[in-house]
């Protein structure tokens, strides 16, 4: 499904080069629930950005369902993100002027799903994440945990092939974080959506079925747990 082959990423800031990834090779299969673990600066977020078609590698290739991302234009990448990828951000990043339902509908609206259908799907998904009664609330009227659940609903409702989540529990208390992880696991199993997330939270690592550890931009461990 996702494949990184000898991926290097070098940032240059004011003439100073920073190597974020050094020859990473990684394959993520369909239906995985995988954590990218590692300390800050290990390259987790950079790798997620590359898998998410938000950035391009300095060297090496990224494939999504057999398609090499570096060959696509920015418009094609935007289309690919819209159709195949879902995103969950550390800071929730809901659109503040839209209600919970409208946030969940956002990607479907861009996909051109008819209004009646997308409203129905959004309401069903909000009910599934336990927020059926908060559909008309704006993000600032909701708690962090509620916002992140809306973000999960938004990421999944458009039926992406892969959901990429950057430290999704970082801003949540442990109880809320556990509930969110259970929800993501449930979505993974029920909707067969591949989940790839970055984290350094031991609980998240514990709940993942596969943990890829990064250090200094290199994969140093790849651990698969029994389901």
């Amino acid at each position, binding site marked *: 499904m996702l494949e990184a082959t000898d991926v290097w990423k070098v940032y240059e800031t004011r003439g100073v080069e920073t190597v974020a990834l050094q020859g990473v090779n990684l394959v993520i299969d369909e239906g995985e629930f995988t954590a990218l673990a590692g300390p800050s600066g290990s390259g987790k977020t950079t790798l997620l950005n590359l898998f998410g078609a*938000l950035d391009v590698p300095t060297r090496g290739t990224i494939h999504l369902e057999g398609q090499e991302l570096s060959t696509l234009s920015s418009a094609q990448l*935007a289309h690919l993100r819209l*159709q195949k990828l879902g995103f969950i951000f550390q800071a929730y990043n809901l659109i503040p002027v839209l209600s919970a339902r409208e946030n969940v509908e956002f990607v479907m*609206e*861009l996909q051109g799903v008819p209004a009646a259908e997308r409203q129905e799907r959004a309401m069903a998904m909000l009910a599934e994440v336990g927020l059926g009664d908060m559909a008309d609330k704006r993000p600032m009227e909701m708690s962090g945990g509620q916002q992140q659940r809306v973000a999960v609903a938004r990421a999944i409702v458009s039926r992406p092939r892969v959901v990429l989540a950057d430290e999704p529990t970082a801003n949540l208390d442990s109880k809320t974080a556990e509930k969110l992880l259970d929800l993501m696991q449930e979505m993974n199993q029920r909707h067969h959506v591949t989940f790839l997330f970055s984290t350094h939270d031991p609980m998240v690592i514990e709940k993942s079925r596969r943990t890829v550890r990064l250090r200094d931009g290199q994969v140093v461990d790849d651990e698969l747990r029994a389901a």
Partner: protein
Amino acid sequence: MSLEFRLAKRNIGRNLRRTGLTVAATVFAVFLVVVFVAMAAGMHEKMIEDGVRIHSGHLQVSGKDYLKKRTLEQFVDLDAELLTLLEQAPGALGVAPRVIGFGLASKGASTQGVAIFGVDPQREGTVSSLPTRVVSGVFVDGEGRGIVLGERLARNLGAEIGDELLLYSVAYSMETAYDLFTVVGTLRLPEPALERTLAVISLADAQAFFAYGDRVSEIAVLAKDAGHVDALEADLHAVLAKRGGPELELHTWAEVMPELKQFIFIDDAGMYIMLAILVVVVAFGILNTILMSVLERTRELGVMLALGLKPGSIFRVVYMESMLLASIGLVIGLALAIPVVLYFQGHPIPMSEELKGAAQIIAMEPVITFKLKPLNPLGSMITILGVAALAALYPALKASRARPVDALRSL
């Protein structure tokens, strides 16, 4: 409602204080633009109307080079056919032949230089306001050598109604012309200089006085519609060309009174420079609001790009925000300004004593008049929306050109 419009509409409601201030600045600018332009239009129209109704008419037929030399040597041979042709022009409201000469008026020991207007008592009122400006006595009626004086001239001469005064000048024949006239009325004019010199007699008396035969100095023509003088001018050119005979000239009021035309031009230029500065200030206000709003939402815009919103959509959202802000200000501004202008259009404001002096210098009546022309609100609308469109360009381009990874900084 499209997603883009919904986002734009809600975004301008996010920071109500900032939106309110920008809208207030726009309202203020629209209000001032509409009111000032209406005031200038009203005042200029009044000045033209006054000038046209005292001096030239909208158009003036005269002998060759009359405008340059203004002597009795440049004349029009007046005949009934010419008058009929001019009067029958479709756009003409009135036609008034005049003899204009200069001379001296004496009463007792007092002598004053005068501009002698010989007018047709029946026709003059169809073109000029002179007959209606009589403040004492009556206007000339062609009987018994009556003369009507400017009020100031009468005062300077010490002349009263019923007094006789001696008028003398040089006739067309180059002989001395002199005759006694009886003061039958006095006139009040917005132009003090003219009021100090104007002496009106009948056309027949003037032709006799100057030994001018059937000649006249000019024929003033008033248009039915001040906005269609061009069409009347074309018609009269055709009439004069068809008639043949000695070469005649046709001039517009702007050619006869170039100083008035120039004054209006300079007055307009000053006003438009001031309004342009005001509009530029509003443009920067809108630019500041939209740019701040875009910079504050860098991450949010990155999220939307990451989720698949196209850069073109981001551009349109930001653009719509600017246009919405300007439109709200425009609607409120017009809603406030138009009733104010319409009220004052029906109720001209009398000038204060200090301003009256200034008004007299430029020969206008001491009232502030307003005129709302359709082009005024339409022009204000185009200007403000155009300014908003320009002001939004940079923030909208900046927002749409962001790379999602840079805007987000992290996924």
